[in-house]
């Protein structure tokens, strides 16, 4: 099986188990406080990491930014103006394409 199919199969099964865990647990008890205080921080940590990971690339000597940095900036401005996600997505694509054309 290729890397792609292994990734898809394992992700699908584990996601199913994760989503089923809460509803299967009896009586709708909640997670212990110390567990939920960690799990609720996983998403913000990972998302911030992905933003960095997708904007910069390592080239052996250090980190370089490419046209996607312009896209990130545009999305940040749009989100700061409290416009919907769709506007941020369009702005990011447009700014990335534009920066790539100019580079």
């Amino acid at each position: 099986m290729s890397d792609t199919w292994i990734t898809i199969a394992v992700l699908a099964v584990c996601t199913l188990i994760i989503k089923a865990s809460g509803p299967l647990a009896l009586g709708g008890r909640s997670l212990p406080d110390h567990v939920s205080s960690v799990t609720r921080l996983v998403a913000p940590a990972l998302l911030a990491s992905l933003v960095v990971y997708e904007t910069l690339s390592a080239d052996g000597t250090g980190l370089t930014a490419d046209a996607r940095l312009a896209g990130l900036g545009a999305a940040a401005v749009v989100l700061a103006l409290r416009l919907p996600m769709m506007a941020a997505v369009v702005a990011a694509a447009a700014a990335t394409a534009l920066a790539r054309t100019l580079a």
Partner: protein
Amino acid sequence: MDQPNDIPAGIRAGLPLVLPTLALGVSFGVLAKPVMGSVAPIVMSVIVFSGAAQFAALSVLAAGGGPLAAIVAGLLLNLRFLPMGFAVAPALRGRPLARAAQGQALVDASFAIASRQDGSFDREILLGATIPQAAAWIGGTMIGALAGSVFGDPRSIGLDGVFLAFYLSLLVGEVNDRRTLLAAGLGALITLALMPFAPPGVPVVAAALAALLGLRGSRP
């Protein structure tokens, strides 16, 4: 007590998010095709059905990372469904297997739409709102993976920038106090520090360690 709702009310509540989800689905299909082929991205959208995790796994695979790093990156993002599942559990009905099946309807959008002011959840809205989400996400992936070539080079129209906007908008929704801000900052720092020398995907997985901040002096 809120008025009881029905599934069609949930479907209507989910409609405003159809267009952005469709656009993300198309982006995912277009970007995944060169890495995974045409069929795998569609299968993935059907059985994994989680935008953030799929984009994360794709980022790792596209950067040359192995399946383990891709799986871990995707799963860590999907860990958020664990506390979300416990939160909605009291609203679900039926035998354990039926409740587990209803739990599969959990996605970010439906979770947000179905939450009531008092912290409880509306089962019909949750189940209903997921229907247009699934149609848009899977349909968008099909369009991107099968007809993506009509869009030309995805990079020339900036489709790879879509990832960033999606992550950033989810991040803005997640960061709502000092702790989440601190975790986000530390996650970004860990990634920055590891990127120059760690293998692809590892800097993202390692960033999850920032969540251990939650163990420190848990305040209410």
